[in-house]
């Protein structure tokens, strides 16, 4: 690209110029969509996909159960059972579509919001709640479902995923790796470095960016002035924007990206264009920084509603299916509630556990002192 010397002078103030959205036109991103908000199936030349009615119902079920679980967690937080919850409301299609695109032997590196992906990977949803309740920092075995722990520090996991993928390539395995991150995370140096390593080593990793339009209170304009999917090209691999509220498109695009990685064609960036319908977390108050109208616009694109319309329109699911699913949701919600409420606190000596795999003299010493110190009170109490 060369300098357009005929371009008009623009205002100098960073504020004004930076805040402006790039003009539509040649730059207007193409959005891969296979299901319109009205539930109509459309085709895309690059992303053909055949999904059976059963699979469609499966995707629908995943999204409904995930949303129900998520809502239940929000409630549990309000009731004081959790310290915090980061809701995925609105991002079900992005997560279920991409999650269902993975194979068992693939490996997933999530942020803190990928409850739907966890679901697809077979992680028991109640295991996700430990860290939000404050009983652990990560309550599952990452290798059980090839689903890494939630990573809170923004962007770090993109490098872990890339390294893991480098290892997959070294092993000559044909698995792929997928790294999740948000629009805000795209600004972190670690994500850029992950792009560089992935490109240079041709690592089989898919970068799945859920652009939910917000990083806490900051709109995407504070992170980039061009669509995020375009970031990839300058690193030497393709990027694509997919309708993040269209579960079929997310499935198809992620499948293609993973397949690409698997077959030695290297990394790819998928930007799932979606919306964070709720607060950033239960600690957040979005009314301070965004308008209801925006939420309403996105409500019309709801991922679950759209698939329901499609199922109904095509006659793939009837009353019975929806009623059974409702019952299943209730059961899940109840199990989540019960499990959380009875989730035991860790023993206080857990402070000293698993800091080192091979031990550390100081930890042993401090644990012993701690135990002796606590014993004093036990003695006193029993006196």
């Amino acid at each position: 690209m060369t300098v357009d010397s005929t371009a008009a002078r623009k205002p100098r103030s960073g504020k004004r110029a930076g805040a402006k959205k790039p003009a539509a036109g040649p730059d207007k991103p193409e959005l891969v969509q296979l299901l319109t908000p009205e539930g109509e199936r459309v085709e895309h030349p690059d992303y053909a996909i055949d999904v059976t009615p059963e699979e469609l119902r499966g995707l629908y079920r995943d999204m409904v159960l995930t949303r129900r679980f998520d809502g239940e967690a929000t409630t549990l937080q309000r009731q004081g059972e959790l310290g915090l919850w980061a809701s995925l409301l609105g991002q079900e299609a992005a997560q279920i579509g991409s999650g269902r695109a993975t194979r068992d032997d693939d490996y997933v590196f999530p942020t803190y919001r990928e409850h739907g992906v966890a679901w697809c990977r077979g992680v028991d949803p109640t295991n996700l709640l430990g860290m939000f309740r404050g009983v652990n920092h990560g309550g599952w075995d990452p290798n059980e479902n090839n689903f890494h722990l939630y990573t809170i520090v923004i962007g770090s996991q993109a490098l872990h995923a890339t390294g893991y993928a480098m290892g997959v390539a070294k092993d000559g395995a044909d698995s792929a790796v997928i790294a999740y991150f948000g629009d805000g995370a795209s600004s972190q140096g670690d994500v850029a470095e992950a792009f560089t390593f992935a490109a240079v080593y041709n690592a089989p990793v898919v970068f799945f960016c859920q652009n939910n339009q917000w990083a806490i209170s900051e709109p995407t304009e504070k992170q980039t002035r061009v669509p995020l999917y375009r970031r990839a090209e300058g690193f030497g691999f393709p990027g694509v924007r997919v309708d993040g509220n269209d579960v079929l498109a997310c499935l198809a695009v992620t499948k293609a990206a993973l397949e690409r990685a698997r077959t030695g064609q290297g990394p790819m960036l998928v930007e799932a264009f979606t919306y964070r319908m709720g607060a950033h977390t239960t600690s957040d108050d979005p009314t301070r920084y965004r308008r209801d109208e925006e939420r309403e616009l996105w409500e019309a694109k709801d991922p679950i509603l759209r698939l329901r319309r499609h199922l109904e329109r095509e006659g793939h699911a009837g009353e019975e299916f929806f009623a059974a699913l409702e019952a299943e949701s209730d059961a899940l919600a109840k199990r989540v509630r019960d499990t959380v409420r009875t989730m035991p606190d860790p023993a206080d000596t857990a402070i000293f556990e698993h800091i080192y795999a091979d031990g550390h003299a100081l930890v042993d010493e401090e644990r012993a002192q701690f135990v002796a110190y606590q014993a004093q009170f036990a003695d006193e109490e029993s006196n």
Partner: protein
Amino acid sequence: MATEKLSIVKAINASLRTALESDPKVLVMGEDVGKLGGVFRVTDGLQKDFGEDRVIDTPLAESGIVGTAIGLALRGYRPVVEIQFDGFVFPAYDQIVTQLAKMHARALGKIKLPVVIRIPYGGAIGAVEHHSESPEALFAHVAGLKIVTPSNASDAYWMLQQAIECDDPVIFFEPKRRYHDRSEVDREAVPGPLHAARTVRAGKDLTLAAYGPMVKTCLEAAAAAAEEGKSLEVLDLRSVSPVDFDAIQASVERTRRLVVVHEAPVFFGSGAEIAARITERCFYHLEAPVLRVGGYHAPYPPSRLEDEYLPGLDRVLDAVDRALAY
């Protein structure tokens, strides 16, 4: 009326407002500091009143925030940077220790780096991982930085004023568990030196030295000890770099015993430096070794365990008893 009862959050907000009003070069920048007013509402209303050019929502990149703040400082600005939580300062660590701390010396004094980095720190708020850490020792070891931490609203107001006025980089650690503690702030007072410790309770049997969130804990411990007839002196150190060793020494020469308390892990923590130096300065005065109460050599635990992890009144008193037993 200059005196007002304010929370620490409100005092910092007022201090930032004063600075933005009185010096057009002062900028506030960080993640979500604009419309949201920061996740703790410390910058509440500032963008509305001073505009997006002075209260700046930044991209989500801490190295970028500190690195561009350095550039702005080189241009003559005085950026006050917010790091959202203690555990998120590390992506900026390189810019802080390698550039911000060393650039004034590198330039043989010809340029100045008046950058303040505000970091809410410490635990006891029931948060998830990375939101409860106390990393001050990791900065104190690095020359070129100054490190202060208020324990009350008045200090929060005035120390931030002084930090912003200072021509050196200052890391301003805010005791987030005390954010809503309220106390009197006299906005027309003449503040004492930024790096001087303050005796917040006089006593004669032992000195408790603490800073930030642990000052209150030590005051409570001293009150409890008083009921048992022990007279504890409590020093609010206020500054971690430099440490006001003269003040600690003066106190210890009288009380002959010292316990240092902080939330950060004991191993390689502030208490180590204070113990080593005060022992050297007061070798013949000390009746007991300087004892340290702090975090364990462990990652900050899940919140259901933080009460056990954090130094509380009982652990402070246990150390006091052990020191007095010598």
